[in-house]
């Protein structure tokens, strides 16, 4: 129950931020960071807990975005329903890609490359298909009513993405404490040993990919509601695949709060770099990401969450920590 308490505390604390009179620029920063965190939370279910490192989570993000946008604009579907169907679309892509890759036994870098290929195929298809607006993209009509899932104030969007992140945190917490979660981690640690204990590794991985796809698709759905525009590069581009895997790796793979922490830190550093150079150096944020990644992999392989718990045990039990250090 401690884990659920921690989720509640973090979410309530973050929900109070708009009352502190922060500027729209800050809120905008937080909204983007939370959106990236959500995409990363999806990646974390499959990559962090299941050990299946996907390079193509754009496939889910983009599908969520396009389903939401196309249903609203072309078919006049209610925004909230379209949002739900967008998430379902991500889950479906997860089932298809997961079913194909895991049933054929792809692991490690082969799995990563095939997921990347799926995302790229979808990007190219969406850049030529008329239904996705081909090269032009899709504009969603401005309609600032909660019924259309659009809000007049930034705070409305902020609470919405925070609510989505809260759901994803809760889902992750439930997974961590469930039979499914234990079996998923067992598959990550040693697939043969898991199978010997009655774990159907293929089914577990496919289910993880479905959940993962649904969560990351929710981030894509939100992107459309917030920016009211989507095209193939934004939806299925490698940028979101990279953000989705970078944030959990930096924050701490296979931890509940890793993606959230990672997204806030990575985004803050990227934003800071842009500030310092006054926007004169486009792409500098990517350089910062690269440096942070090198530092994390070098000094805290379990991410910021792992580094924090190491630090805590050193402060709380200095003697033991020293022993561990020398051992």
């Amino acid at each position: 129950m401690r884990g659920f308490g921690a989720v509640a505390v973090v979410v309530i604390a973050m929900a109070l931020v708009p009352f502190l009179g922060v500027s729209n620029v800050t809120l905008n920063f937080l909204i983007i960071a939370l959106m990236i965190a959500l995409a990363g939370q999806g990646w974390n279910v499959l990559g962090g807990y299941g050990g299946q490192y996907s390079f193509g989570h754009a496939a889910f993000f983009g599908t969520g975005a396009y389903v939401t946008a196309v249903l609203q604009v072309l078919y006049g579907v209610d925004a909230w329903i379209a949002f739900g169907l967008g998430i379902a679309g991500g889950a479906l892509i997860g089932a298809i890609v997961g079913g194909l890759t895991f049933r054929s036994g792809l692991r490690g870098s082969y799995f990563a490359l095939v997921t990347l290929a799926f995302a790229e195929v979808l990007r190219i298809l969406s850049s030529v298909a008329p239904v996705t607006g081909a090269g032009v993209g899709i504009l969603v009509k401005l309609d600032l009513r909660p019924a259309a899932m659009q809000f007049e104030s930034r705070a409305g969007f902020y609470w919405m993405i925070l609510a989505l992140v809260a759901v994803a945190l809760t889902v992750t917490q439930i997974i961590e404490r469930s039979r499914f979660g234990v079996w998923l981690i067992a598959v990550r640690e040693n697939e043969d040993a898991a199978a010997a204990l009655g774990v159907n590794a293929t089914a577990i991985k496919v289910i993880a990919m479905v959940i993962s796809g649904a969560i990351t698709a929710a981030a894509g759905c939100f992107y459309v509601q917030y920016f009211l525009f989507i095209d193939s590069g934004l939806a299925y581009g490698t940028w979101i695949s990279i953000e989705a895997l970078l944030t959990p790796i930096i924050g701490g793979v296979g931890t509940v709060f890793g993606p959230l922490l990672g997204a806030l830190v990575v985004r803050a550093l990227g934003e800071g770099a842009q500030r310092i150079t006054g926007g004169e150096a486009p792409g500098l944020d990517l350089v910062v990401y690269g440096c942070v990644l090198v530092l994390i992999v070098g000094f805290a392989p379990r991410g910021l969450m792992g580094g924090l718990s190491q630090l805590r045990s050193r402060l709380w039990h200095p003697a033991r920590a020293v022993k561990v250090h020398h051992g």
Partner: protein
Amino acid sequence: MAEPLLQLERISRRFGGLTAVNAVSLAIAEGRITALIGPNGAGKTTLFALIAGFLKPSGGTIRYRGEDVTGEAPHRLARRGIARTFQIVQSFGGLTVRDNILVGAYLHHAARERALAFAEQIAGELGLASLLDRPAATLTVAGRKRLELAKALATEPKLLLLDEVLAGLNPSEIRDMVPVIRGLCQRGIAIVMIEHVMQAVMSLAEHVFVLAEGRIIAEGTPPQVAADPAVVEAYLGHGAAARLGGAHAH
């Protein structure tokens, strides 16, 4: 005799040109300890992998409790009650001892509290109670062998395949482990063990199969097998039995 728990009929497995297991037929009876011995490379571990579903046989059938289970996936066989340990222990290194056993305990206990309680009970039976919160990767060899056994036991098997659980243990650790294995058998679990520690085989097993170059060359009680010239030759080379016999005569 009633129908055996496990019956192999002319099971073969080829790897390219190499026949690792060649038309092996054997029956494992319920409620006793059976040993599978043989020189290195005889195909013992391959035979275990075939029984547990990690390899599919090139030919032959496997019947378990009267049902044909040939070529079934390992997780399905585990559900049916066939568990195995690995010769090279396969623990979930990053997880604690408790979580390692929990993976197996969840197979028949879906509720977390029940599974946790069962995992702790198993750990207690195998003398791992004080190590529950230790990461599996930090255990000694003896600890890892016990954990390997605990994980398999947590799935509540009816047939337990032990692949060299005594290898790498020192004599006092072996002395501690022998009653543990005997205790499992007394709980009604049929055990098949691959073992090189002959002293343990002699004291534990009721029935022994000897595998050499992929074939069963002898079977019987431990003393019968030990006295079989074919077995002596398989271990010590062609003509060894005659030479040893000659030595005795002088």
